[in-house]
Each structure stands twice: as C-alpha cells, then as structure tokens.
C-alpha cells in the first residue's frame, strides 16, 4: 500500500471519551477471548463432581485465581454494558454528539460500579 491518502488521526493527540469507551469495548472483548478459557475451566470443574466443584471453589479463593476471575467478570460487565449501549445506538437512542458522550460516560461509570460490586462480592 503506497497510496497517499490519510490513514488515521493520531490517537494520542485527540482521545474523546467516546473513543475511550470504544477502545475499552475492544480491549475487554479480546480479554474475554482469553477469559472464556478460564470460565470454561471453572464450569468444567464445577459440573464434574463434588470434588471438582470444591477445587473450583478453592481455586477462586487463591489470590491469583480470584484476581483472574475478577478481571474476567469486570471485562464481562464492561463488554455487556457497552454492548447494550451499542444496541441502543443502532436504534438511534443516544446517537447525537452530546448523547454519545453521555452514553460513553454512563458506560464507564456503570462498569466501574459493576467491577467494584464484583470485587466486593469476591473479597
């Protein structure tokens, strides 16, 4: 590709809240691609037997196991809330400039609360 057309706006020079919400949706999505393996692992153990369920329960009591679950749940919460916002935007709910900024802030705020709630539940 040697065309002279502009490729992109340098993201470091201009990062509105809507862009933060968008890139976070992507980052949490990729994180969940890995987090799925962890959740599936826990589900596998929990369904296997009493001993397996106890192992899964013990795993999420360890520092690393609990943190991994919290990160996964926090990513899931953000991805879910941002996804709901995306569906609303598809129906032209909140897709004005001001509305999009409000929606982005709301998504970030609600996700922060959800991540805090997940942390409180786990610790």
């Amino acid at each position, binding site marked *: 590709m040697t065309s002279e057309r502009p490729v992109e706006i340098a993201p470091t020079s201009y990062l509105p809240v809507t862009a933060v919400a968008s890139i976070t949706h992507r980052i949490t999505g990729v994180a969940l691609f890995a987090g*799925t393996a962890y959740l*599936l692992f826990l589900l*596998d153990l929990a*369904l296997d037997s*009493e001993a*397996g369920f106890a192992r899964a329960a013990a795993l999420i009591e360890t520092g690393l196991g609990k943190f991994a679950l919290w990160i996964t749940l926090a990513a*899931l919460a953000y991805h*879910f809330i941002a996804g709901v916002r995306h*569906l609303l935007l*598809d129906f032209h709910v909140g897709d004005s400039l001001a509305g999009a900024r409000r929606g982005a802030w709301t998504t970030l705020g609600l996700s922060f609360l959800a991540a805090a709630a997940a942390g409180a539940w786990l610790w």
Partner: protein
Amino acid sequence: MVTNVTSFGRSGLSDFVLQRVSAVVLGAFGLCVGGWFAVNPEGGHAAFAAWFSSTPMVVFATLAVGALVAHAWIGMWTVGTDYLRPHYFGRASTVVRLAYQGATAALLFLYLIWALAVIWGGLNGSTPPATGEMPALPHASAVGEAPPAEGS
C-alpha cells in the same frame, strides 16, 4: 457489496446482524448463569449440576456456545483487520494477520469442542452428579444408566 474471504458470514451485513443477535443470546445466557449464582451463593455441586444439566439449560448453553464462536470470531476478526495491516506491519502484515486469524480459529474450535463436552457431559468418563434428581439428559445416559421412568 463488500465481501471478505475471512469474515464469518462472507458479508459485512451478515456479520453485523450476527454480532448483534449473538450478543443478545450471550447477554441473556450470562445474566441467567450469573443470576443463578447470585440467588444461590452457597449452591454447591449437586444443585448447580442439576440445574445446569436440565434440558432447557443444556439447549440454552449449546445455543450460547454457537453464539460465542460467531461473536468471538467476528469481534477478533474486526480487531485484527483494523490493527494487523500494512501501516503497522508493512509487507509482513498479511502473514501476521493470517497467523492471528489461524490461532483465533484454532482456539475457537478448541473452545467449541471443550464447551460441548462440558455441556453434554460424561464423554470422558466423568461421573454424573447426584443420582435420581436429574432429568435423562445428558449425564445419565453417558454411563449407561437407564433414565428414570417419569410419570409412571
């Protein structure tokens, strides 16, 4: 119409709709499972397995796995095509992107097989959860037990 040989539905419009439909399925499934643990914080294996192995949940979970594969592919593909391109990777970008897409596809296939084995249960000799309380699907049949006669 814009098409791409590596997109999920061979068409951007198809992927657009699939991404939203699968999102709704996954969102509903996530709320369902998360809700169960919220309502039953001390659930334990027997109660959880009995609930998760019920026919409606096996069907719902199977649907969710299909939705997950489609959703994850479309999402990972979108991210990959946005960043793994000549602007950043020069002439290697096609190779880099194909390797990324290949790894994504291989992992999704692993998730698919793994998840179906977990949901449909007992494929590798895992023991069924508490006897008696479960519907016939799917663990009981895997160890050769006759399903409990219902309604007789």
